[in-house]
């Protein structure tokens, strides 16, 4: 089974609006998830628009998460992994 890809947007907007701290995700990921999930940074996902209202964005599988936080990402990962089983 291929890993669930989590892409954290490192575009200027997402980083400044709170995405910077999402880079702590790898260490917050439960050990049992480590084999199932791959985490990487990525260039601007092109979602932010002019106002930056809903940044930061994270792409989890094919789903886009806005106003992302570590907690929201972990919840979404769990949901996706459970669904895949």
């Amino acid at each position: 089974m291929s890993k669930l890809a989590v892409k954290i947007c490192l575009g200027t907007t997402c980083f400044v609006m709170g995405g910077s701290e999402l880079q702590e995700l790898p260490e917050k990921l439960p050990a049992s998830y480590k084999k199932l999930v791959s985490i990487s940074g990525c260039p601007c996902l092109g979602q932010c628009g002019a106002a930056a209202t809903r940044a930061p964005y994270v792409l989890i599988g094919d789903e886009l998460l806005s106003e992302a936080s570590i907690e929201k990402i972990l919840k979404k990962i769990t949901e996706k992994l459970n669904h895949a089983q």
Partner: protein
Amino acid sequence: MRNSNSQAVHLKKEILVRLAAAFLGGDYPQAARLIPYDMRPKGSEVPFRCCIHKERAILKDRVIAGMGFAIEADDEKTLLSEYAERSLSRKRPEDQPLTVLGAACRGCVPNRIYVTDLCQGCVARECQSVCKFGAISIVNGKSAIDGAKCKNCKMCVNVCPYKAIVRIAVPCEDCCPVGAITKNPQGLAQINFAKCIVCGKCLAACPFGAVHEKSQLIDVLNQLKRGQRVIALLAPSIAGQFPGSPGQLKTALQISGFSDAYEVALGADITASNEAREFTERLDSGQSFMTTSCCAGYQELLKKHLPEIVPFVSSTRTPLYYAAEKARRENPVALIVFIGPCVAKKMEGLGNPAIDYVLNYEELGALFIAQKIEILSCPETPFAQESSRQGKNFGFCGGVAAAVSAAAGRPERLKPCLIDGLNKDTIKQLKKMAAERTCPEGNLIEVMCCEGGCIGGNAALNTLKLAKKIILEYSDRAPEIKGL
């Protein structure tokens, strides 16, 4: 102190982004006037306040502060478009960098001890017996506090087995290390500027986002638009606050209109060497300790609350001072803009004629976002002069002491004592050192107003851990500081 997870911080950043976009978009006064309506259009949700009109009124105040004006002086009749015009004709920024938004302030009930409904009216009644002031009596079978007698000592809070007694917090007052926040007659927070050390802790602490920095963003944008030669001075703590490397950040600044960028770490090298020399001289002459002097919040504390420790404070100037001097010498007709992590440095900027403007990381971030500059796609531009590893490490707790120690060259003689954040306790500690003319914990006292150092400044964009990690990776490639 920072808390970038909070929605209040997100909202403040969004205001700056919209303001910068309004400026760049063409009809600035009209676009600025519409910001509250763009953010809360007709029929939109009302996420925080009682109604859409109050939401917009507070957003308007946030925009006014973002333009650099004091809300205390606002007559509520002046339109945002009028403020926009004024922000363009202003010659220099206003004096006090902080402002309180009365409309956004919750008017928290004053600090006091409160018995909640969880009180069971138990038989033990430890709260009553532990109170030294006789403030607790039993009314209708439950504990009741006589406010006139209570001294807020929290003994009852600590002993209640049901945790039924609480201390009601007032976050801005609680975090202010110098008691500079009081209530006005309407019960709203106000800053006593004669006492305020501009540390920005209230700014980060208020859950309603009622304290704002008066931004100089429009002033800088206006100078860039006029085609002025503008030089950016980058604080050492900037590595890790934006995506990409400091070299890429320099390119991004050039794309956004800055002519050149210097690392303030160059000035940090001079500060460290001068402090190392001073430290050696002072110890040779019999003084038992010396404190560092580079933190702007600490400088305000010295002036307003701690004059007795001044004889023990290094008279060396700050890294920013030396960096600005160099930038000014090399660019006599340019405008000098410092980019840093905190509001306290705005105070230092206002007091130094070599510094024209100060932007914090949130404000620079807003400028990049509005200009749609992707830092990660920028190539590296090297800095004209390389600073030392130790100079680059000035921005985190322990970095300054390590630099002075390395420059002094005799590590066995120097014992660092780190004041990691100014609060009521550490200020007491400093007062004690001054009174006793000695410090048992060390002889070089590094004072950082913010916990973690400058990377913990109120406008820092990254976590302490990640910021420090990235600074260390960056500084590792730099040469060692020259010894005396």
